[in-house]
């Protein structure tokens, strides 16, 4: 089920509202008075703002007026909102994969694996092109960081002693 841009925005506004409500409750548990003041103030303001945001995106008179003054709804751009959730999730997954590869196998192994995988599976390049991209990337990074800057590239959880 795909939501219209307006519906998506309202959903997001609700999520944001939920976040601030949670932070408000959490802040209430801070023991020291001075440690509580600002967080409560800010998360409280956040709740108010989020509610305004929800209203601003609804198709009501009040909503439109708020939107006009504070520009909440006036600019629901289409940029990316109708791209299709499949493609989005795929790319986001690739980021997770990239991070996981680098964390587990270290940067020297993880980077070429990631570049190769992304190039061949997602960008649909030929295997040769992907391999070249992978090797070129890690080579450049290795030269730049390990050699020139004397940085230790992360060895990865599996290989670290």
């Amino acid at each position, binding site marked *: 089920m795909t939501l219209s841009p307006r519906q998506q925005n309202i959903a997001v506004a609700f999520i944001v509202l939920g976040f601030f409500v949670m932070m408000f409750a959490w802040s209430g548990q801070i023991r020291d008075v001075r440690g509580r003041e600002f967080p409560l103030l800010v998360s409280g303001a956040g709740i108010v703002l989020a509610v305004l945001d929800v209203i601003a995106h609804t198709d009501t008179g009040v909503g439109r007026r708020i939107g006009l003054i504070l*520009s909440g709804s006036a600019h629901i751009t289409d940029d990316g909102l109708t791209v299709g959730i499949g493609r989005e999730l795929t790319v986001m997954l690739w980021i997770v994969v990239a991070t996981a590869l680098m964390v587990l196998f270290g940067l020297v192994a993880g980077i070429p694996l990631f570049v190769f995988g992304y190039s061949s599976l997602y960008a649909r390049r030929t295997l040769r092109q992907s391999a070249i991209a992978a090797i070129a990337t890690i080579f450049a990074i290795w030269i730049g960081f390990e050699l020139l800057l004397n*940085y230790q590239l992360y060895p990865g959880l599996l290989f670290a002693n």
Partner: protein
Amino acid sequence: MLNGLIQGLHLILTVHGIGMLALGVVVGLVFGAIPGLGGTTAMALFIPLTYGMQSQDAMALAGGIMGAVAFGGTITAILLNTPGTPMSAATCFDGYPLAQQGKAGMAIGAAGMSSSLGGLFGVVILVAVMPIARALVLSFGPAEFFMMALLGLVSIAASTGGMFLRGLISGAAGLMMAYVGYDSVSGGIRYTLGIDYLWDGIPLVPTLIGLFAIAEMIKLSIIGGRVVRTKEFGERIVGVREGIRATFRNWPTVLRGSAIGSVIGAIPGVGGTVASFIAYSVTMQVSKHPDRFGKGEIQGVIGPESAINAKDGGALIPTLAFGIPGSAEMAVFLGMLVLHGLEPGPLLLIEHQGEMFSLIVALTISCVFATILGLSVTRWLSLITLVDVHILVPAVISVSLVGAYALNNKLGDVIIAAVMGLLGYQMIKYNFPRVTMVIALVLGDLAERSFHQAMQLSDGHWTVFITRPISATLLVLILISLAIPVVRFLLARRQSIAAKKGSPG
């Protein structure tokens, strides 16, 4: 003083000195350009190298790095919408749209020229202000810091234009993020869920890398194609000269930006990131066409860029006069000074005039040199915007994650960068400005700390914020900042009503 200047020039203009300066400039440009690395890292890496050198050569290297880093960060900000350093983030707003219109050359040209001029201006201010530096630095206490932080937060929110409400929301979220970790005021630990890594809070640079670099790559990856969105790419070569001309044409903007940069840079603790954002905000607010900002208005590049390098001059004021570093870079620089036996403080300028002026000279030459160097490779660099996205994306993501780790050798930084990348993309999609979040993250701690300090020092009397003259002045500036968008809105409404009345029925 003229004596000192001549001495300084003399010490620098040796083969060694120039060589170190050149090295510093190259290092600065490269480190500035790569997200995650930056001036602080560059200085920390190269300090050991200066150990055996003469002090003035070390000054040349330091000056070279400091003057060039900002421009390096600006180049990636314009070409890829991913600022290499936090302070270049403001340049993205109008720099990247210009690149998308095929005008990357112009943007970089304007940026380079502005930062040169700004840097020169900052140095002039530094030298001029030195005599009263003490009094200036000493008059800023916790109350003033609080007002300064508040001013920063408000200006940024006000400058988000058409996304004010969501800008505030991002800002509030950023503030909550700033409160994670150890709170030095209450001595307590907040929101860490027992995770040791979060004790120091959510780190700024990995967040920046994620929100801007990685998020942008996600977006590019989804949309595909190339960075350049339009067909008019032929302008790239002519662009640079056009950009330089534009800078001179807009000299009031340059002056304004430089002034803001030096003043804010001089206040220890507030930081240069804020300077460029406030400069952007002010430039937009005094402009006759505020609605053009964010879409490729060249003034939106000139303003912040003038501020960035001017702030270096400003940041040296408390650093040299008191040994109180105005920023993280300055703290590392101080370490280097001490290593060379140049103890900062009131006596430094008297006892070591030559070395100090060689630093100032180095900084000056560096700004200009960096610009020349940067501009000469601009033509090649702008080609990046033509590169196929699917080659660019994995490369930039890899470098970003490497950079995030390189910062402090903490695994957590890489994970934060990745998480922020995912969040950043959603923020792009739903029009939540990321900039207010970053600024809030930077200023949140300062604001809260200063407020409680001021209150404790005044034994709980709120009036302290109004009775102290500088604090009161800043408060007035804050109110003006909040008022301008509202006044604008009312004026525009009245004009449109008048227009409707005037048109034939």
